């Protein structure tokens, strides 16, 4: 057994986290694993979920349906454990998630310009999560930076890594630059009042 294996107690504790999430987030996890590891990976993932005793069947997930937000954390943790992925891999999963998202494709009108996109992010968040909120941060086109703040969302540190990748991808959709970087400058798990991501580009 790997040393970072989650315990039943930890799972139980996670299941106490309130809030809901759209089914689409599980779909993107599923597609990513399928893409990276094929059916073998999916089988391994299913076995790991069974091992954990969690009811999560990716193939039956409905993308527009609301599911418990703790299931979102479990999905990422079980993937991380099943394939012994590090944070970088989880960040990459987050970065690829919008690529598989039908919802993202249908919400393209929100990504027309940087300013409009940032302005629309709270609404975009609301379509995915019932907990936490996005605060559009200041945009400095001269300095080529934008700040995204995620408030009231202290669920699990793995989501910090996931959203780092995810916000980077959204930035890549709306900022035309080949060199876009993202950095979590503030984290609620580090005692900050909110999560803050600083996006820079050249």
């Amino acid at each position: 057994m790997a040393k970072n294996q989650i315990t039943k107690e930890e799972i139980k504790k996670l299941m106490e986290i309130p809030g809901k999430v759209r089914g689409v987030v599980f779909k993107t996890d599923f597609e990513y694993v399928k893409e990276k590891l094929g059916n073998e990976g999916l089988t391994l993932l299913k076995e790991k979920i069974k091992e954990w005793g969690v009811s999560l069947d990716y193939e039956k997930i409905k993308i527009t349906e609301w599911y418990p937000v703790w299931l979102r954390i479990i999905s990422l943790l079980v993937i991380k454990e099943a394939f012994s992925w590090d944070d970088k891999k989880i960040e990459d999963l987050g970065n690829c998630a919008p690529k598989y998202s039908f919802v993202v494709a249908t919400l393209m009108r929100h990504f027309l310009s940087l300013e409009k996109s940032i302005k629309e992010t709270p609404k975009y968040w609301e379509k995915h999560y019932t907990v936490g909120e996005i605060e559009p941060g200041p945009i400095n086109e001269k300095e080529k930076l934008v700040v995204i703040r995620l408030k009231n969302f202290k669920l699990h540190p793995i989501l910090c890594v996931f959203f780092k990748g995810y916000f980077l991808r959204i930035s890549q959709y709306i900022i035309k630059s080949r060199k876009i970087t993202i950095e979590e400058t503030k984290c609620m798990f580090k005692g900050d009042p909110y999560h803050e991501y600083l996006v820079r580009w050249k």
Partner: protein
Amino acid sequence: MPEEKLTEIEKELQRAKEELETLQGYIEEFSTFLPLAVCSLSGIGIIISVNKALEDLTGHKSIEIIGKPLEDIFLEKKKIDDLLKKAQEEEKTETKEIFLITKTRKEILASVAISVRKDLEGNFIGYFVSIIDITESKKFREELEKRVKERTLELEGTKEALINMLEDTEQARRRAEEESNRTLAIITNFTDGLLVFDREKKLSLINPQAEIFFGVKSENVVGQPILELTKNPGLEPLASFLGGEIKGVFRKELQIQENLILEVSTVPIQREEEIIGTLVTLHDITREKMVEKMKTEFVSISAHQLRTPLSAIKWTLRMLLDGDLGEITGEQKDFIEKTYKSNERMITLINDLLNVTRIEEGKHLYKPALASIESIVQSVINSLKEEIQRRKLKFEFIKPKKKLPLIRMDVEKIGLAIQNLIENAVRYTEPEGKVKVSLGGDKKEIKFEIEDTGVGIPENQKDRIFTKFFRGANVIRMETEGSGLGLFITKNIIEAHGGKIWFESEEGRGSTFFFTLPIKKEFEEFLKEF
């Protein structure tokens, strides 16, 4: 809000979600099935979604290219940028041929179409892109263009060749026309009359001279068959003479009118092996015939006028030689005998000349009578017996095994013909030589043959042997006597009897002359009268 109302809204929301998921599934299936490579872009040209056909075309998995600028999968980045701008500015689908780069760095020429996406309010929200691999169609188009070009070149070559051929044909046509005009001019101005009959024996051409000869106009007779022309008073003599099949004739005389005698010849017109018509030439010999007639009349009158005094001389000399006018000396007798012989030769010559004139006047024949050829031959031989003995010739007369029938002939003239032949053999055979006369025949004809071992006839003079006044060069050398009229007269006599005459000869070895005379049925009828 009442609880019932809330439940109703939740149900409605659930249905909407289900429909949305169904729609998503449908779109995914449709996108996967679609053979056209398509993708959607964000407002700044970032690839948001791709279908399977685009994955197949580029070799990239969707995850590899979603999130990248569209230009990343193309070689000519600026073209993509321009196309995006243009599509947005002009708000219509823009298409360009741009090289796509696959994952394996292969360059594919693609037709890229871009149109803008709009939301329900008509706001620009991104792009739709379709990509078609046109490598094959481009190759096909180029190949087609190449083939069209090659074919065009070929056609131009053919056109040039055709123009050349047309020019050549035109030139040939002009040449043929010139040739035709020249030929027509020759025909028109030809002093002889010319008629051309086609293979159907229809008159196709008559020249002006022939029109004058026959007193006809070309337009009235051209196109008519020769049988039809026998009904034309002008052309009747010629048409009848030639016959329906247009017999082959060579220099045959034809009297059209009293003062018009034509010499007619026909020549077949051939193209390669095929006879395509007949040319009839008409040479006006009226004047020649007139001159000839005058000459004949002159000779005839002269000969008659000469024969009377020569006969008187002959009988006077005979009387002198016979001593009817008194005794003469031996010397006087010798002189008178020589004079008598010379006079005899002159009489013979005059007789020959008279025979020739009669032949030419057509008054030669004849006094027909049934006679035996054998007795005529024997009679001639008898008259020449002394001469034969004097020349010490071995003379032989082979008579027919069966008795020959009597035939209808001019006895005097046949006798003359036989005499000429035997005299020539005797006269031109050296002493001790041989002369053999044979007589034979069958049911159809009687054949006379005389063979000698005489001087023969020079090869180059054989074709003139039956012409008037001709004497062989070797004969002139050995014998001064002879008029050169004997064989001419003989030939005319034999032919006048419907017979044929010919000879075989070798100079220095001798000659054999032959003639035949037909035994006609009508002679048998004639016989019955006696």
